[in-house]
């Protein structure tokens, strides 16, 4: 009886491990081993979620600033930049807003625990042909100090780190 019980526990454990690995594999569409010299950032899309324009712009600008600050890429191109047309050694970052909760700076200051601003963004890295090479969900939030737009900076730092760790040709910088 005990053997059956142990076997059942062991098999369920193995199954959960396997499922977790499969999920992680699905999230990272392909092995992001290829290092590139340039990255192009497209404007943040928010077709399903109502996102104020200032948040959209702040996400985009902060992401580009953080990528430039982090280094590792020779060029960080903006959406529509003609100079990127001839570059082949490049990944394109598509960002889509999946969730947004605008908190309140006043509520944060007064109560400490309430008023959190949070943004969930699905980041998809594709190659020049549009083939997905990495997908990941990145969250930006502000809990305590700062205005609501500070959540966009939090996202930008995480997004830039994700890009840098997976694609930067010169990760030491």
């Amino acid at each position, binding site marked *: 009886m005990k053997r059956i019980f142990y076997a059942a526990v062991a098999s369920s454990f193995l199954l959960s491990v396997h499922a977790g690995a499969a999920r992680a594999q699905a999230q990272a569409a392909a092995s992001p081993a290829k290092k590139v010299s340039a990255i192009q950032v497209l404007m943040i899309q928010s077709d399903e979620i109502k996102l104020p324009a200032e948040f959209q712009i*702040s996400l985009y600008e902060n992401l580009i600033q953080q990528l430039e600050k982090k280094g590792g890429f020779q060029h960080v191109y903006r959406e529509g930049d003609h100079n990127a047309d001839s570059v082949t050694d490049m990944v394109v970052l598509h960002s889509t807003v999946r969730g947004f909760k605008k908190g309140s700076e006043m509520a944060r*200051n007064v109560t400490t625990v309430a008023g959190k601003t949070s943004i969930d963004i699905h980041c998809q890295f594709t190659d020049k042909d549009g083939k997905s090479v990495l997908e990941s969900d990145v969250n930006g939030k502000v809990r305590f100090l700062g205005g609501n737009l500070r959540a966009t900076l939090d996202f930008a730092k995480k997004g830039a780190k994700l890009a840098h760790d997976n694609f930067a040709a010169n990760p030491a910088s």
Partner: protein
Amino acid sequence: MVKCTIRRALIFLAGLLAAAALPSAAQQPPTGTKAVQVTGLTGVKPNAKGNLASANGNLEFEHEKAKVTVPIHSVEDVITGADSQRVFRGTMGTLTMLAPYGGGRFLSLFRSKLDILTIQYRDTDGGLHGAIFTMALGKAEPFKKELLAQGARTSVPVQDDSGSSNTQEKKP
């Protein structure tokens, strides 16, 4: 003697008034509106205070000694919004958080409303940029109209542009 003193006093008073009036007539009030560039303009630090104006087909942001210009015809979208900020902010605002008996929290309740102006524009290479400005309440809408009159485009018509917008409104 008295008449002479009165005459001298009147001349002195007139001189004072003229001296006070002349500089104000010579110094033309700066056009545009005082604004804070939150982020986006190339070569301008975040949260830089300056003067935002539209002149000669350009959107100009002048701060300290530098001036940044963006051709208005390259502005693809102008959107206004509203927000609020702490009355006591910056270093002083941070220090107030240390006030005893929840004094800092109490001071956080004092907030001032402000307008947000968001623009999207293209540089000479076609790269898409965005910039965010905050300004005094009621200033963003007239400025938007001014930009639209000079050739800027918007995804949200002026009448409907209350609060914030999203990309869904861009759809026809």
